């Protein structure tokens, strides 16, 4: 965990409201687990709280890391106007990512993602492929125009798309796609990140799976585990987990979502 002014190398618009930000700095040389995130100070003095974003890609060799984000409010809108060469005060890598050590080459993993839950899953998929794991992706979007990183994911394994309006791939939400395509397929690991509905579907479906993981979002203040803003209740105890520090990745059945 460190604080660093990362340099903006490139900002690229992927869809109407999704942007890819390439940053450079020593932080990219830190050991990270796919699923960890960074917490970015938006360069607007009215906005006091940092904004958390999953790490979509990290390359220690070039000291670069990538974020992918959707403009949903003030902070991400300001971010989308940042030009190359600017500095972005960033803390990270934060939190606990997706466990992958237990997987052997040749085993099979299912990655389930939706919307802006996808960025950390891209890092994860690359990691798994490096380990020799066969990766299947099930990715949901509202409609065809929202899809980004299709080529990138297809290079890593099979990709099944679901769109709410049927404009691309399976017609319906991702839970239905899972029913239709993967009801009987066994995976050695399952990973998910995306909207709450998607996480609930995965959490229910793979509750007893020994290696199924979901990555949560939560409103944060400190981002480092010291303010108790981001808590989520444990499933079967009174314990409260901190999404920023105990998570954002939890095993299915571990937390109340």
């Amino acid at each position, binding site marked *: 965990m460190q604080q660093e002014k990362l340099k903006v190398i490139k900002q690229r618009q992927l869809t109407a409201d999704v942007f890819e930000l390439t940053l450079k700095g020593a932080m990219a040389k830190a050991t990270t687990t796919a699923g960890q995130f960074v917490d970015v100070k938006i360069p607007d003095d009215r906005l006091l*709280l940092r904004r958390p974003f999953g790490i979509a890609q990290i390359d220690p060799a070039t000291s670069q890391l990538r974020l992918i984000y959707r403009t949903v409010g003030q902070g991400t809108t300001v971010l989308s106007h940042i030009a190359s060469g600017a500095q972005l005060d960033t803390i990270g890598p934060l939190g606990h990512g997706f466990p992958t050590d237990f997987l052997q080459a040749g085993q099979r993993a299912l990655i389930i993602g939706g919307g802006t839950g996808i960025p950390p899953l891209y890092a994860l998929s690359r990691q798994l492929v490096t380990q020799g794991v066969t990766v299947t992706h099930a990715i949901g979007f509202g409609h065809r125009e929202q899809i980004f990183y299709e080529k990138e994911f297809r290079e890593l394994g099979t990709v099944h798309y679901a769109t709410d309006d049927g404009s691309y791939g399976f017609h319906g939400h991702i839970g239905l796609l899972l029913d239709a395509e993967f009801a009987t397929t066994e995976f050695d690991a399952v990973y998910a990140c995306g909207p709450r509905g998607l996480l609930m579907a995965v959490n229910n479906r793979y509750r007893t799976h020994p290696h199924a993981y979901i990555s949560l979002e939560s409103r944060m203040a*400190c981002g480092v585990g010291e*303010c108790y803003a981001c808590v989520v209740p444990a499933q079967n105890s009174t314990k409260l987990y901190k999404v920023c520090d105990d998570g954002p990745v939890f095993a299915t059945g571990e937390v109340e979502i």
Partner: protein
Amino acid sequence: MNRLAVELPGLNLKNPIMPASGCFGFGQRYAEFYDLDQLGAIIVKAATLQPRAGNPTPRVAETTSGMLNAIGLQNPGVDAIMADKLPWLAERYPELPVIANVAGSTESDYVEVCRQISTAPNVKAIELNISCPNVAHGGLEFGTDPKSAYALTKACKAVSKVPVYVKLSPNVTDIRVIARAVEDAGADGFTMINTLVGMQIDLKTRQPLLGNRTGGLSGPAIKPVAVRLINQVHQVSQLPIIGMGGVMTAEDVLELMMAGASAIAVGTANFSNPQACPEIIKALPDVMDRYQIRTLTDLITEMAVTSV
């Protein structure tokens, strides 16, 4: 000569800067960003007698130049704090003065926590939190009624082995009444201000955004209110004040000290910048030069006399 040193009951500080309660936990993760020994002191997260789960989420929201929080005093309880958190600090930072923030639902809760936590070797003072706006019982009730504030302060003073600072609420018609009651009860100082009660509504749901509906407003937005209230209390009491409320820069530190504070706590700024405290400490001497301030002790003395 250390230009930044300040002295308050129980606290000989090499500089006046300390993280504010609840905005720094017990410092463990912030210690990964910098050496906590740079701090003048550290005010740790509220301790209650029993562990507390806090409020439903969302617990924080952002406002223009401020934030709302309704954490609800989540903490592992005084036993766990004394067993784990305080020793962790004592081991690594034996010289770092700790101010323990104490909260509760009943007077006897407060008293019991004070009795226990004031025996921790690194706890040099207690901050009696009678102003938390985010809990249904205790908290703000004690902070808005002079009689309750008096009784609670007196009871806690009776058992505490270290000086007791009482944390005042800005959510009152006349803060001087509370300040006087607390002073009469034997308090050693004040800390102020706690957060202003605020609310944000989610336009999509048409409901309050915070799980607790309301939350405490902090950050630069409230600094003018902090300056005003610190100054008002400073004019009616000789007791030292640890000032807080929207401090982001060394200039802000001087402004609160000119209003009457003798030391400064930094809350929300830690979230914007985890290294806010050491950066402010580092900037202080130059800013003091700019305004012809030789030492902070001089400034405090001057302000005590002129009583702005």
